[in-house]
């Protein structure tokens, strides 16, 4: 299915319902079984897919509702990562996880998630994977000589999984790297690890770089100026960035971005429950169009919608789609 001009998409997560949080906690307390939890997850993911379709989003995700958080879902699947399963109070807390030896190769089991998404929608799909820099910052390294070595090895182990995800039909694979903004000096080696991760993957590759969204609040503040020129080495086709909350000042930085890069601009502030109007969205898109041509622009929220209530998340996506339609019409005339 051909995408319209200014395709709308999401960054990954959809609103995590309170009841799902409670059921996840029930699972950790061993009051419901793995099988029941899987069924609950399937149902929640189908609902998230349907909501995105109803809102009119062009490229949708599975809402990441199976995931406790952006680290543990991968740390638990990575062979060789040791997890202290008693180390967290809430499901969204991080486990205390560590590596004590060289990571062995092995499947991560993410392909089933992609297949489930593909089976439940005929829209184009976006599948998100936490990148090696962010994983290396959180999983305690007690083996590799440096974080850089650890991140590069994570990329080596995860690369076959990404190839399989692409084969399973994910149209866009997004690598989430919010920690770039917290550790700008790491960018040269972080981009190397990113390139190692996506080498040979047959899908459109995006990297999402925001200022963090833990507990619905930023983890850092600053300017995207640090991204240049380092990010130009990244072999991705799309950068997705946070602009709605931070304002458009940084947009100017991307005026000289080589044409090979598309830009996904955040037009929805995910750190407030206040819902944008379509007019506000349209205005943010117009501002972006002054810097980046429409053919290279994707429209999305600043980050995942995880911390918003379901009605707010849905209303925000609807406003995003309506605001985008307004600008599309203007561009046609």
């Amino acid at each position, binding site marked *: 299915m051909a995408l319209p001009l200014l395709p709308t998409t999401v960054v990954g997560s959809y609103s995590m319902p309170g009841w799902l949080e409670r059921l996840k906690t029930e699972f950790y307390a061993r009051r419901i079984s793995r099988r029941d939890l899987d069924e609950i997850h399937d149902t929640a993911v189908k609902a998230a897919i349907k909501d995105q379709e109803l809102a009119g989003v062009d490229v949708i995700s599975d809402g990441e509702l199976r995931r406790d958080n952006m680290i543990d879902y991968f740390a638990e699947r990575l062979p060789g990562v040791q997890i202290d399963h008693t180390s967290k109070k809430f499901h969204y807390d991080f486990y205390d996880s560590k590596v004590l030896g060289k990571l062995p190769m092995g499947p991560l089991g993410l392909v089933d998630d992609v297949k489930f998404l593909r089976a439940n929608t005929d829209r184009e799909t976006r599948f998100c994977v936490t990148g090696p820099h962010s994983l290396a910052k959180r999983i305690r390294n007690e083996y590799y000589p440096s974080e850089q070595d650890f991140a590069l090895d994570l990329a080596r182990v995860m690369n076959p999984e990404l190839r399989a995800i692409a084969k399973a039909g994910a149209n866009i694979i997004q690598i989430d790297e919010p920690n770039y903004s917290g550790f700008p000096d790491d960018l040269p080696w972080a981009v190397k690890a990113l390139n190692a991760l996506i080498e040979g993957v047959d899908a459109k590759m995006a990297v999402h770089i925001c200022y963090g969204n833990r507990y619905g*609040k930023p983890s850092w*503040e600053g300017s995207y100026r640090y991204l240049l020129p380092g990010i130009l080495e990244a072999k991705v086709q799309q950068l997705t960035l946070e602009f709605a909350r931070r304002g458009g000042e940084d947009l100017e930085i991307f005026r000289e971005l080589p044409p090979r890069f598309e830009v996904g601009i955040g037009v929805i502030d995910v750190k407030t429950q206040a819902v944008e109007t379509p007019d506000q969205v349209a205005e943010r898109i117009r501002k972006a169009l002054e810097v980046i041509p429409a053919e290279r622009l994707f429209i999305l929220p600043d980050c995942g919608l995880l911390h918003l209530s379901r009605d707010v998340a849905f209303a925000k996506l609807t406003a995003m789609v309506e605001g985008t339609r307004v600008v599309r019409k203007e561009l046609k005339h």
Partner: protein
Amino acid sequence: MILQLNYLQGKPAASTTQEVVDTLYSLLEEGRLEQEQFARMRVHLDWIQYRKNFRECVMTTKVKRDPYGQPSPLEMYIDLRQLTPATLRAEILRAMTGEDSPAPGHDRVFLEDLRSFRESITWKFNNLYWHRLADWEEFTGRGYEQALPGGKSDANHPAAVADCVADFWTLLRDLESRKQLPEEIFVLEIGVGMGKRAGLWMDRFRALDEERGTKYYQRLKFLLGDYSLATLDRSRPAVKNHLNVCSFIVLDALNPMKSLAFLRHKILHIHLTNVYDNLPDEEFARRDGRLYSIQVRAYLPALQAHRISEEFQIPPADIPKTVDRLLEGGPDYLVDRKRGVAFWQEIWRALRLEERLVHLEDLPDIVLPIGLHQEQLEEVLEEAPSDVRFHMSSGALESFQNTVPLLHPRGFLQVQDIFVTNFDEYRIGFHGPGKLDGSIVNWVNGALLREVGERAGYDLHFAPFHYRQGSRTSVLYSTQRE
């Protein structure tokens, strides 16, 4: 009967306890107390550290009729500090019958209907106090800080302020080393009062900055926040040497975001002293595994109402109306201000709260403070004593929830206040409400605040205020929850 001895003091309390038990038994024997009532009774003996509070020396708390016909607790609260042995029997009988005075026509004067404490008229008195503080102080001849225990605020302790500045300077240094220090360094103090702490803080910060040569002071934007311009004006002299870096902002401590939304995620340090303990609050009680909301009704005891009526030439039936007008228009309403303030202070001194327990099932629309979910409350209560009466600290929770979005991702919040950090503490002392001059004071439920903090992405730590011996204050520090 369950006899619960809370925080009591010394031998007199012990002997009075004995007299309370003897008196209740004698009432039982005389048939003035039924066996079934006696068996369901919970008698709480307290030594209320607030000499001025909302309780008569003996108070019974009624229970709204249970729709399921379950036997309900009958609560009696006795303040051993107020009680004298000679009047004990009469006070217990008065509290049980609800009859204040043997003289006909002398009844309690109610100022409102039963409702949650946070919606009570008492908070309007609290607001009036802060808005007309100058009038109150002029009449009493002393400043509000003199009403504090010890006569001064812990907020202004130089060593505490110096440590806070040192922590803040270290944070700035760290951010600078990571190239993440913002151009403008925003600091906010909510509830600045006379501005003494703000002045001390900036003096110290400038001195440290000059000593270390870091040039942070010139980037400083210090925001002084309080509820009215009149209060903020009172703080100006204390910060006169720093006016070029100060902004004075009228804000509601319950929702600072309303005035400061443009600074969301930008403020590096926020401080509050003795603000949370003065925000609207409500109480709950768990009895026999069931959770009750405690509703209150403000009233004037018969004798005091009669005295006020005579002194101000206002018929008792007109007192509620006159109080409403006082709270709406201030003390000027009563012809001359002096007389108005006198009336205000007399009413406040006499004001008491009647209580009623209402089972939560009867309050399906009850709204928990924002940020606190039902399941969190249940989780916290699982760890709490099975029979406990506690503060919800609704205002403090709301304020916290509406303040932290202002914090820079690496910024921190510091709150000096009186905290209950563990539900067990509710069993061993009285934590409010008390009257502090014309305002209300309640200890803050730190245990619930900690829960709300975790969900908002902050770990909250409570440390005793070790800068002054005997201080009841604690300091809440926030750290990022990863």
